[in-house]
């Protein structure tokens, strides 16, 4: 027959041990982890929900590619325009302006607003005949009143 056992007969003691100096080091180790936690909280991106971060990566890449392509096409177009303009000779530009430039009503309006002292002397002293010749020089057919 097995002997009756009473818990009160067994010496009450903690049967386990810890490595030497463990409780001296533990507070410092905990404090190191709290400091690391504080730094993690400052960095917001790592705290984002992981699937959201994974979804953001290709979207960001796509956006960068789009911006890159758009910028390249814009600058290439501008360069092409400038190169074409550089090829046009001065004579061609003068001929174009002589043939197609028209006087707008706004040009007259601007002229009326000018004060006399702002006009050059050769304009103020022009004769009626010279003024008519000057007007004949322009193509007045297309003036929109």
């Amino acid at each position, binding site marked *: 027959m097995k002997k009756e056992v009473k*818990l009160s007969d067994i010496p009450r003691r903690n049967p386990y041990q810890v490595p030497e100096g463990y409780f001296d080091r*533990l507070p410092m180790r905990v404090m190191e982890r709290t400091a690391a936690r504080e730094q993690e909280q400052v960095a917001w991106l790592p705290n984002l929900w992981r699937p959201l971060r994974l979804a953001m990566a290709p979207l960001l890449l796509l956006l960068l590619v789009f911006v890159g392509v758009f910028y390249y096409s814009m600058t290439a177009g501008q360069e092409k325009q400038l190169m074409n303009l550089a090829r046009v000779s001065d004579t061609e530009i003068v001929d174009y302006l002589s043939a197609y430039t028209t006087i707008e009503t706004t040009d007259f309006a601007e002229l009326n607003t000018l004060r006399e002292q702002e006009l050059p002397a050769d304009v103020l002293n022009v004769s009626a005949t010279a003024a008519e010749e000057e007007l004949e020089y322009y193509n007045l057919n297309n003036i929109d009143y």
Partner: protein
Amino acid sequence: MEDKELLEKFAQPESRNMAFNQLVRKYQEKIYWHIRKMVIDHDDADDLTQDVFLKVWKNLDNFRQDAQLYTWIYRIATNECLSFLSSKKRKFFLPLNDVTAELMEKVEASPELAGDEVQMKLQKAILRLPEKQRLVFNMKYFDEMKYEEMSEILGTSVGALKASYHIAVKKIEEFIKRD
């Protein structure tokens, strides 16, 4: 330093770290041993103790002072232990008996218990109790905690705790007798 003073100092940014360091020093042994008796292994107990104090750090601003600080920390530690043991079962798809068997192996391999047959039997008998009953037994038998404090930590009535401890003692005596 009293808990009230610790909490006041923790609330001030300039003395926050110092107060928390004091808090860890004050409660580390109680919390560690509470955890160690549940998970047996020192490394697991070490990780869990640190996790408990990290949670304390994170939530201490929200601590309501109508409860005692140390019962609040004990409660966090208890939850961590139970979560750890549950995750162990889920992680390895282990039935409860296999987790108990794993803890028993750790007890048998423990150098501190080598040569002390009575203590070895007692520890193995304690491990055969259901987890929550083991918690109750450890808190009463080893930590000599009052039932009222245990009630606050475990959220169980004093009457139920007394009954649980009484049954645990009977079971342990029976296990030791049969072993």
